[in-house]
């Protein structure tokens, strides 16, 4: 046990020079990471709103497919889903001409399932009296949803939605296994060439972390905005 610690080679922990030298190359990879992440956030959010509202419908034609979708997406690993899209679909003749597109489809469809649940719980947490007040003012279902319920639900949904956004950013790393040259893929290339896995993967981790810090910053700004109508 103590021998293990005594044998640690601290000098290999982080090669700053290598990290700085390879940074431009990693940032190139980050471009693809951000493309997948941003597209997936938008698509997953929009799809999640639609599926979440469908899930709350009293009509089985809407809520049954929505339930099935949410259950499947939450119940299957993203990596397996991406494999189905990229390696499975070509077997039956459906091929993505671009691995990047396959990654976007995989990540966004998968996280839409989580977003749907956030949307549903946020809408349900708006007091029933808000629906009733709007109803007595002759507003219909979609007017009420748009003007009264969704603005209030948004405030409640912000923290869990941003949790999902950060998961999306980190989930994009799975695109590396279907040949998309994103941040993790680039790090692995350099690691393979220099045999310095520690430096390269720590570098990748730090860059993912930075991206998530920026996202967290947006979250705080939005929370301030959506909390403005609450005194203290």
């Amino acid at each position, binding site marked *: 046990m103590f021998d293990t610690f005594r044998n640690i080679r601290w000098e290999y922990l982080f090669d700053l020079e290598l990290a700085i030298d390879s940074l431009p190359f990693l940032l190139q990879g980050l471009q693809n990471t951000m493309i997948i992440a941003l597209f997936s956030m938008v698509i997953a959010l929009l799809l999640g709103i639609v599926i979440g509202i469908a899930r709350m419908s009293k009509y089985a034609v809407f809520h049954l497919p929505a339930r099935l979708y949410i259950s499947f997406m939450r119940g299957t690993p993203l990596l397996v889903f991406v494999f189905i899209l990229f390696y499975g679909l070509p077997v039956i003749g459906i091929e993505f001409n671009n691995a990047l597109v396959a990654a976007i489809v995989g990540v966004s469809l998968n996280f839409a399932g989580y977003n749907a649940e956030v949307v549903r719980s946020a809408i349900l947490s708006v007091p029933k009296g*808000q629906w*009733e007040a709007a109803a007595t*003012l002759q507003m*219909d279902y979609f007017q009420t949803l748009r*003007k*009264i319920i969704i603005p209030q639900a948004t405030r409640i949904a912000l923290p869990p939605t941003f949790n999902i956004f950060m998961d999306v950013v980190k989930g994009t790393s799975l695109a590396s296994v279907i040949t998309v040259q994103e941040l993790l893929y680039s790090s692995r290339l350099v690691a393979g060439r220099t045999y310095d896995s520690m430096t390269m993967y720590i570098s990748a981790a730090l860059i993912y972390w930075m991206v998530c810090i920026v996202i967290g910053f947006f979250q705080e700004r939005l929370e301030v905005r959506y909390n403005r*109508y609450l*005194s203290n």
Partner: protein
Amino acid sequence: MITIERLKKSFDDTPVLKSIDLQVNKGEVVCLVGASGSGKTTLLRCLNLLETPDEGRIKIGDKEVSFGEKPISKKDIKDIRKYSGMVFQGFHLFPHMTLLENITQAPLTAKQQEKDVIMKEAEVLLEKVGLSEHQDKYPDALSGGQQQRAAIARALMMHPEVMLFDEPTSALDPQLVREVLKVIESLAKDGQTMVIVTHEMHFARRIADKAFFMDDGYIVEEGPADQVLANPKEDRTREFLALLEDE
């Protein structure tokens, strides 16, 4: 203005309204009184179909709907709600909107009038309920009395033929009750038709034309407010009023 016949409503297997007949004429102020659980709030909520009655008939304005034979349509609900505005015990203002936005949202959505007409009207109404200086504040920054007065203005913006009040002062601190009652009283003077569920007996006697005393899902006694609330004929009404006196 309102005619209700043989109205029945149960929640699961618990009957709450057990055959209600009631009539309200145009310009009348009517109070529904009775103990908690007597069905008065449910009756009020049936008038704008926030609750759907199981049986009976409601006529309000020119719209008539029967219950029990076939399910009511969305159009029935929409048509019935045109005639009434509602004020809730818990205000239910929209917290993410300023007072001005709260009271103009529904008329702007309905687009029955030009925007500047609606804004002008909102100004007049806010003045009437004494909230002009607070029009840009959010509900959370206001007292309960102010919120309830804003809720009254919000309902009035849709020009309802009938105003429905569901215990409008029950959630308020005692010192705020008066300011809300004063607004309701001024509406009565304007000739607004109103149905008010309330526990404020002195107020009810002062402004109501008619009173209905409800107990256990029935209207036990009805008549001129002064008579029902001061010299009731029925034992159950007397017992209820005596209980209130004791408090």
